[in-house]
C-alpha cells in the first residue's frame, strides 16, 4: 500500500535555508546541504527546495546547489522557484532533481504546464498553489509569494485553478494555505478537503503544521497524499521519527516506522 508521505520543505535563498512567517521576515536556518542531510537522516520521505527569491526577482533557479544536493541525496527531491520554460526545467532535472514545481510562471502562462507535461511526463510536473481566503469569502490564488512587496492576488478561484492545472498535465498539486502558513495552528482542513474532492492526482498539504496531531488530522480529515512542513522540522518541534511512529500507531501506512 502506498505510504502517506512526509515532506520537508527547505526555502532557499542564495544557497541558505530560510523561513518566513506568513511569507514575511525570512530567518536564516542554515546551510542547504546540512539541513537537507539532517532531514534525510531523520526519515523525511522527500524534500522540496523552494528558491523563494527566483520568481519574484525574475531569474531562473540556480543549478549549482541542485547539483550539490543531487550528489548525495538518495531520496526524491523537487525544485521550485524560477522555472519559466521547458529549458529551465530541463536544466533543473538534468542537475538531478526528480520533479519541478511551478507556481507564479504557470499563472502567468498556463501553457507552461502542458509543455512540461508533454516534454517530461506528468509525473515530473508539480503545480504549487498559494491560496488564501479573499475578501469575498472565496479561496483565491496568489502569485509572487516569495517577496512580501510583490505578492499579488490573482483573479482565479483556487479550486478552478486546481482543476485547470490537472487538466493541463499537473502530476501533483501542492496547496499552500497562506492563512495557516508559519503560525503552527494546524493545516487548513476545510480548504484541503475541498481541494481533495476535486483533485485526482496526488495532493500535498502545506502550511500550518505545528504538532504531530496536525499531521494525523490532515491525513484523516482531508485525505491528502502527503503533508509538507518546514519550520517544525528545522526546529525539531516535530521529530519525523516520532511523527511516523504516531501515524503508524493510528494504522496509517508510513515508510520506516518500526
Amino acid at each position, binding site marked *: *500500500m502506498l505510504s502517506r508521505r512526509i515532506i520537508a520543505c527547505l526555502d532557499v535563498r542564495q544557497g541558505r535555508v530560510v523561513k518566513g512567517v506568513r511569507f514575511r521576515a525570512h530567518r536564516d536556518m542554515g546551510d542547504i546541504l546540512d539541513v537537507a542531510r539532517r532531514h534525510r537522516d531523520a526519515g523525511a520521505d522527500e524534500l522540496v527546495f523552494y528558491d523563494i527569491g527566483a520568481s519574484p526577482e525574475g531569474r531562473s533557479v540556480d543549478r549549482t546547489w541542485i547539483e550539490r544536493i*543531487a550528489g548525495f541525496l*538518495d531520496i526524491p527531491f523537487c525544485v521550485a522557484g524560477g522555472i519559466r520554460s521547458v529549458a529551465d526545467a530541463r536544466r533543473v532535472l538534468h542537475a538531478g532533481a526528480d520533479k519541478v514545481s511551478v507556481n507564479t510562471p504557470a499563472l502567468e502562462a498556463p501553457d507552461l504546464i502542458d509543455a512540461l507535461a508533454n516534454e517530461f511526463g506528468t509525473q515530473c510536473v508539480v503545480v504549487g498553489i498559494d491560496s488564501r481566503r479573499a475578501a469575498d469569502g472565496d479561496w483565491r490564488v496568489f502569485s509572487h509569494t516569495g517577496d512580501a512587496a510583490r505578492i499579488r492576488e490573482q483573479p482565479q478561484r483556487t479550486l478552478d485553478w486546481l482543476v485547470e492545472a490537472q487538466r493541463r498535465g499537473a502530476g501533483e498539486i501542492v496547496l499552500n494555505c497562506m492563512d495557516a502558513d508559519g503560525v503552527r495552528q494546524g493545516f487548513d482542513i476545510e480548504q484541503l478537503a475541498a481541494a481533495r474532492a476535486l483533485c485526482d492526482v496526488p495532493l500535498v498539504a502545506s502550511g500550518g503544521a505545528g504538532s504531530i496531531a496536525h499531521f494525523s488530522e490532515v491525513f484523516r480529515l482531508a485525505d491528502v497524499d502527503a503533508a509538507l512542513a518546514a519550520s517544525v522540522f528545522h526546529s525539531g518541534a516535530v521529530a519525523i521519527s516520532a511523527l511516523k511512529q504516531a501515524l503508524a500507531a493510528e494504522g496509517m501506512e508510513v515508510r520506516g516506522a518500526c
Partner: protein
Amino acid sequence: MRVAVIDAGGANLGSVCNALQRLGAVPVPTADARLIEGCERVILPGVGHAAAAMARLHASGLVALLRALRQPLLGICLGMQLLFEHSEEGDVDCLGLLPGQVRRLQPAPGIRIPHMGWNRLRLRDAGSLLEGVGEGEPCYFVHGFAAPVTSDCVAWCSHGQAFAAVVQRGHTAGVQFHPERSGATGARILANFLSGALACG
C-alpha cells in the same frame, strides 16, 4: 566499473549517475553505441513518455544494440517498461526483450494516478537482484503505466492492482521504482546489479 547510462532524453540521468558514483562505479552517460559496447554494465533510465523515448532510441540507432547486448542491462522506471513488447503510452512497440504489454494504471477511489510515493516490495523470488532485500521494504515509485506480473517478475507491488516492480530474465533486468531515490534498499539493488547478480548473455 564503467556503466553506460543511456541518454534517451530522459530526465533522471543525473540522479542515476550520482547513485552509481556513490557505489564506486564510473557512470558513462552516452547515446554512443561504441561507448556503450565498451562498458561492463548498461543502464537504461527513463523519465518521460514511452513513444518519445523509443523514437529517441531509434533515432540514435540504439534499438538493435540494446536487443543484442551481452552485458547485464538494467531498465529503470520507463526504461524497464521499454524492455517489454509494447506500451499503451503512445501505442508504441518497445524493445521486446521481455514478453508482456505495458498498460495504464487505472484510478479508483483512493487510488490516485500517477502512482507517486513509497510503496512496499512483495518478493516472489528473493534471489540475485534482490539479494539482501527484505519482504515489504519500501521503494520510491513515480509512474502512470505499469508492466504485468509475469514469470519474469521477481517482486511485485500493488496500487489498486498488482504490477511488476522488479523483473529479471537472464542478463536483462528492470525496476519500476527509482533505486537512485529509494534510500538503502535502492542502493542495495543497484549494488547487486553491479556486483554480478545477472549472468552475462
